[in-house]
């Protein structure tokens, strides 16, 4: 999929690092301009997230107060609830309340549980964060060496069949949706072989299947990108220079090729990696993983708006953090990316 997008005009050129916005003036750390530029981006993303989640409740058809009070509540009860929820205050005041709530950690009360949203999130967040973090790390650890290895072995028209086999297999497995993969893994490893736990988060082994289900498709798409970037980088003049230094294979590829192909590969994979957060939410259902995903789906079914609002805020913040981490890693690998845009 990414191969398609990156082949289109307007996306970053493979092999070339994202254009640097001129040279950094001497004496100024490029990280400073990075911090300013990226800080602006974070403010904008965060602001968008807050505004959108705030308007979620006013946009909901029907009256949230009715939803809380239940079907057979009297008008007086509904009015009282509306008053207590602050729904009859002007929109501006409510927005300021919402904003101060976010920064003081008060995200409201759950309609369904009579528990604060913050405490629900606090108990569920670690599970989703663990799942997403393990998944992303596994994807990077597996797909970068795999893609590079295939790229090197098939370079210069060698090993045609490896090339075709790799393309077919990864193409197939990236087309299998993560929750289908999850179901298949449950059937194979949980039920038929019965070697791994398939539900809950009771033991360390219980994370194996969720992470596998979450990672297989992204491993395929990212390793395809890495494989193609490897092919592009190996064609570059500076690789000939490095070959002219007559280095051992490990040094040649790890020192000279890796940093260059990582830049574009990570830029193109940024969306895949932050998209894994979405995958994690779906995967939780299959494995009864007690994280934010199952909670938010239950909240949508129950029309528990403060919980939905709070969880979407937290998930959005996690996506922002993942994107930021990718940019920081990119900057550390190749300082030229600090000056310019890195994400599509």
């Amino acid at each position: 999929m990414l191969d398609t997008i990156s082949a289109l005009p307007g996306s970053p050129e493979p092999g070339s690092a994202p254009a640097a916005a001129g040279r950094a003036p001497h004496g100024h750390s490029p990280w400073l301009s990075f911090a300013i530029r990226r800080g602006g981006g974070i403010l904008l993303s965060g602001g968008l997230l807050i505004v959108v989640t705030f308007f979620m409740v006013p946009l909901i058809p029907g009256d949230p107060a009715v939803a809380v009070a239940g079907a057979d509540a009297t008008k007086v009860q509904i009015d009282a609830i509306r008053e207590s929820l602050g729904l009859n205050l002007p929109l501006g005041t409510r927005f300021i309340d919402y904003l101060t709530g976010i920064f003081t950690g008060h995200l409201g009360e759950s309609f369904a549980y009579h528990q604060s949203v913050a405490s629900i999130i606090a108990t569920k967040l670690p599970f989703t964060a663990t799942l997403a973090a393990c998944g992303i790390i596994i994807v990077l650890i597996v797909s970068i060496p795999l893609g590079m290895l295939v790229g090197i072995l098939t370079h210069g028209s060698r090993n045609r069949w490896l090339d075709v086999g790799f393309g077919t297999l990864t193409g197939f497995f990236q087309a299998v949706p993560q929750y289908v993969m999850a179901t298949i893994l449950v059937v194979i490893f949980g039920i038929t072989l019965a070697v791994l736990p398939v539900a809950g988060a009771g033991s360390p082994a219980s994370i194996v299947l969720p992470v596998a289900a979450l990672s297989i498709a992204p491993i395929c798409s990212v390793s395809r990108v890495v494989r193609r970037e490897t092919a592009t980088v190996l064609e570059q003049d500076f690789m000939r220079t490095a070959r002219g230094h007559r280095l051992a294979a490990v040094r040649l590829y790890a020192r000279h090729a890796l940093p260059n192909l990582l830049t574009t590969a990570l830029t193109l994979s940024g969306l895949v990696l932050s998209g894994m957060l979405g995958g994690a939410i779906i995967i939780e259902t299959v494995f009864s993983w007690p994280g934010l995903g199952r909670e938010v789906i239950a909240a949508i079914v129950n029309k528990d708006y403060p919980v939905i609002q709070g969880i979407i805020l937290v998930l959005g913040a996690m996506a922002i953090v993942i994107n930021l981490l990718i940019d920081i890693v990119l900057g550390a690998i190749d300082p030229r990316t600090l000056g310019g845009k890195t994400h599509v």
Partner: protein
Amino acid sequence: MSESATRLRRFRWTPGLIVGIVLMSAVLLAAIIAPFTHSGAAETLTANTSRGPSSSHPFGTDGLGRDVLARSLVAARLTLEMTAATTLIAVVLGIAIGTLVWIAPRTLREVVLRVIDAAVAFPNLIFALLIAAILGRGTWSAVFAIAIASIPAFARLTSNMASAITHRNFVTTARLLGVPAPRIITRHLLPNMAEPLLVLTATVFATTLIDLSSLSFVGLGVQSPEYDFGSLLNDALVNIYSQPAQAIAPAIMITITGLGAMLMGDGLAAASNPRGGRRFMSLRRASEVPAPFVDDDPLVRIDNLSVLSATGKPLVKGVSLEIERGEILGLVGESGSGKSLTAMSLARLLPDELSMSASILRLGDIDLRRKCDPRRLAIEIGLVYQDPGTTFNPAIRMGPQLTEVKRVHGRAGGKRATTEMVAALASMKITKPELRMRQHPHELSGGMLQRSMIASSLCTDPTLIIADESTTALDVTVQAEVLRQFKRINRDQGTAILFISHDMGVVQALCDRVAVMKDGEIVERLTGAQLAAGEATHPYTKALIAASPGNWARRDALPATTEMETIR
């Protein structure tokens, strides 16, 4: 007319594209036919609940006794309808936003693009959850949720493409002529983006399919009694322990549909992208002709060197050369004449896909046709390439790159190598050498980079320097300085140089002997003195001399300007 004809000819039917079309057609067929033929089996409740696979129910029955295979086939219709509707909404709105921003006032455009950028950073599913929360559960709510969530990415890619087109001349002209904005979009922007937009649409279709079925799978999409692939799999999950087979049919259907859509997207992209071409042919290295070992008087001996391309086309045809110790040999010819390939054969740096054979290929006592000691190669051959802007690794600081050979092969510690390199840079008249060592290549000028490259290639005291068009990319003053450095090295250290150029003026000033190459063969050999005296006899050599910037005075020696153009 002719353009569309060439485009048709260029369209490549890759196996992936064909498989993708076949799979999608099969699913489409199921979507059209199955609701008429199988809806009875799919929706009638029977007493045969939760049966395993049997001859009448190949994939078993569900908890209400309905045939799983029939349901999976019938579900194709709703799934495809939803996916198509979602894709349509996302594509139409995405294109509208992506193109409209380019005719909007600048400030509005900046704001919209920034907001889109910020929105793209969030996974689709987070948006989708939000919209599902507002609209409630259900088929249409899922369609709108995924459609709206897909818009930012599509708008972003469309606006990137539109941006490239709006800066082209014909659009600028149209705007200056006062062509109304909607007409600019329909007449100029869209036709020029049609192809990539089609590819992108196929891609969006594939991701949309997965996202929609994900929503149904977690219970937020299609609600009973309607069913799509995702909700079927959700039903199966409930019974997964008692009846795992129930999950198989919907899983296969989702995978086939997703795979089909994805292969079509990739196939269309590959078909419209000439870069992605792959030739299928086996490749064999040309066998090496065994050669007698001859006396090792000259430093370099090349005898009967041939280089073949991957398709078997001869690029270098039996070239023979010798370079004496301390000699500067010029190898001249236009680009494509095979001079660089000859030099890279000597350096053992030919691209992998080329094959090389020679009767003799020797540097000192090293037989370069066989596996060589990398350490000796690294130390004895210094290399200076054409474009200093691309020959340095952009991700590594100058210091480690310049001292790498010394550290890896010269058995020198990092500190000593650095000190030596700083001195070498200073001798190449590079200012602030300590600072340069800490900088990245993009922070140095082309001339500085090339002088650094020369300094680096010299640091191991090589016996041969191969300079491949080393002065071509430099401006004239820097060029003169670099040439002086080569001359100095050759004089002071007795290093032999193979100097490749297409500039006769430069070669004449520098080289002891000159070999002229054309179409993979050496057509004339001269001494530097003969060249300077104008004793070249081959018409090609004469044409090269006339074309050289340093020899404008001799331009009138050319028979006709047309010949000059053929050379250029």
